[in-house]
């Protein structure tokens, strides 16, 4: 089988942009949460989010292209540019037909939809922008990334809500393994912190209402958790065949060795209370990697900080790993970044690749009093220096769609 490695990472997150700033944020236990600044949130029941306030599209994208992209596409293109740079790819030397892009979004260009709907209502149909459709479509980001670099290989956008980023990486893994691509840019992006989305997620009961203490609001596995903190950002990983990486002298950060995907087929937003779909996805990913539960050192949990997820994910980890579950160092990146929805799986896979490469597992912040039903080792005491040989990254989406990845030392 063709081995697939991660050779570059680009991220836009609420705790840092680019690999070094992101990793520094993880190591410092920084929280990206605060009162919403992109619009006046007063009047909304939830006024906090994890915004990527430092993101400046003009650093990465020409002024001609910026107005043609929704913010989620801008973040994806910026992440792709950062990833290509991090990987040291010489774009002109690449066989473009064998380089693809799989980059999704949970929602797509919601800000664009809201703006153009306002134009329709207040000024009529001629005032609706001709750029509305290409800006809002969730596959727009993958298309724009391909156009920027001239990559003609497989190109599409998975949409599986909060599992999107992991599905994208898993699909990219398959294209390279099948020998049908040499290099794939894979990941996800999300920029949907709008009044409409905040209202909608609040009505679902999904968001933390800890408005007076935003940095303590995302507290996965803690007894006092009350929902996730809405985040925005993007993550793109450069995946390539080991042979391709070797031929150009690139140092792999980690190997992507397993992918498992399942559906709960239970409820559109609630996880299966026994975590069966999630556990099966972890098991399939391990089997795909040729690994057993005893091999696993680290899990980057889905860990959303919702009452449901953290409890059932704990059950699922125990179900998939059995007695080995208690020995695994588990962390929730979302404790720091908030929930990046369609970008989460990609940013978290990036965190796992870095944990493997740098020999440190980031911690779970705000975990002060663990829920008695969350009784595993969530690395609440901050980053932990340790050798990480085999790790799992979990993503579970609304819709009951689960995607798990196995990454290991290359």
């Amino acid at each position, binding site marked *: 089988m063709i081995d697939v490695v991660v050779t570059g990472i680009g991220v836009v997150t609420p705790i840092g942009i680019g690999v070094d700033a992101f990793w520094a944020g993880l190591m410092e236990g920084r929280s990206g949460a605060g009162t919403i600044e992109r619009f006046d949130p007063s009047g909304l029941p939830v006024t906090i989010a994890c915004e990527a306030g430092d993101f400046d599209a003009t650093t990465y994208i020409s002024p*001609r*292209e*910026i107005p043609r992209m929704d913010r989620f596409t801008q973040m994806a293109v910026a992440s792709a540019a950062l990833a290509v740079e991090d990987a040291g790819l010489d774009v002109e030397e690449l066989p473009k037909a064998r380089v693809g892009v799989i980059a999704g979004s949970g929602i797509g260009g919601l800000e664009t939809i809201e703006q153009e709907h306002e134009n329709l209502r207040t000024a009529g149909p*001629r*005032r609706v922008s001709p*750029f509305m459709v*290409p800006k809002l479509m969730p596959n727009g980001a993958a298309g724009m990334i391909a156009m920027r670099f001239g990559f003609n290989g497989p190109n599409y956008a998975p949409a599986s809500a909060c599992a999107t980023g992991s599905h994208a990486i898993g699909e990219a893994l398959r294209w390279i393994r099948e020998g049908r691509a040499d290099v794939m840019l894979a990941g996800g992006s999300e920029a949907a912190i709008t009044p409409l989305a905040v209202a909608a997620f609040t009505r679902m009961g999904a968001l933390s209402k800890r408005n007076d203490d935003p940095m303590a609001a995302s507290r996965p596995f803690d007894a006092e958790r009350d929902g996730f903190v809405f985040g925005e950002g993007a993550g793109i990983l450069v995946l390539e065949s080991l042979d391709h990486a070797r031929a150009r002298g690139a140092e792999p950060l980690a190997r992507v060795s397993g992918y498992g995907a399942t559906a709960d087929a239970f409820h559109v937003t609630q996880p299966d209370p026994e975590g069966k779909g999630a556990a099966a996805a972890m098991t399939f990913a391990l089997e795909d990697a040729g690994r057993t539960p005893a091999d696993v050192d680290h899990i980057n949990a889905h860990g959303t900080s919702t009452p449901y997820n953290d409890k059932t994910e704990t059950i699922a980890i125990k179900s998939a790993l059995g007695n080995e579950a208690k020995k695994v160092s588990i962390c929730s990146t979302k404790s720091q970044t908030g929930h990046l929805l369609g970008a989460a799986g990609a940013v978290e896979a990036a965190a796992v690749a870095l944990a493997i490469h740098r020999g440190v597992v980031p911690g779970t912040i705000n975990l002060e009093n663990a829920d008695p039903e969350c009784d595993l080792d969530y690395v609440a005491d901050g980053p932990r220096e340790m050798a990480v040989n085999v790790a799992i990254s979990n993503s579970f989406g609304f819709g009951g769609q689960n995607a798990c990845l196995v990454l290991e030392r290359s």
Partner: protein
Amino acid sequence: MERSEILVTIKDHLEARGIDGELVTEQADLANDLGLDSLDTVELTVGLEEKFGIEIPDTELEGVVTVGDAIDLIQTKSPVGA
């Protein structure tokens, strides 16, 4: 409307979209010199309609190739309701 006033409006619109204002002359070809695609043209048209309070039917855009052509077309229009 003065030609120079219309030219400045077109220039401002295109500069806001990242196009070098120096290139925006009466002789400039919208597609070949300024790189406008069909979506840009629709957006420019609506921007000019808003600015000058006129209506430009899509069918009348067919003969518009250069910035000067666009200015000619706009000069034939009277503000709606005027």
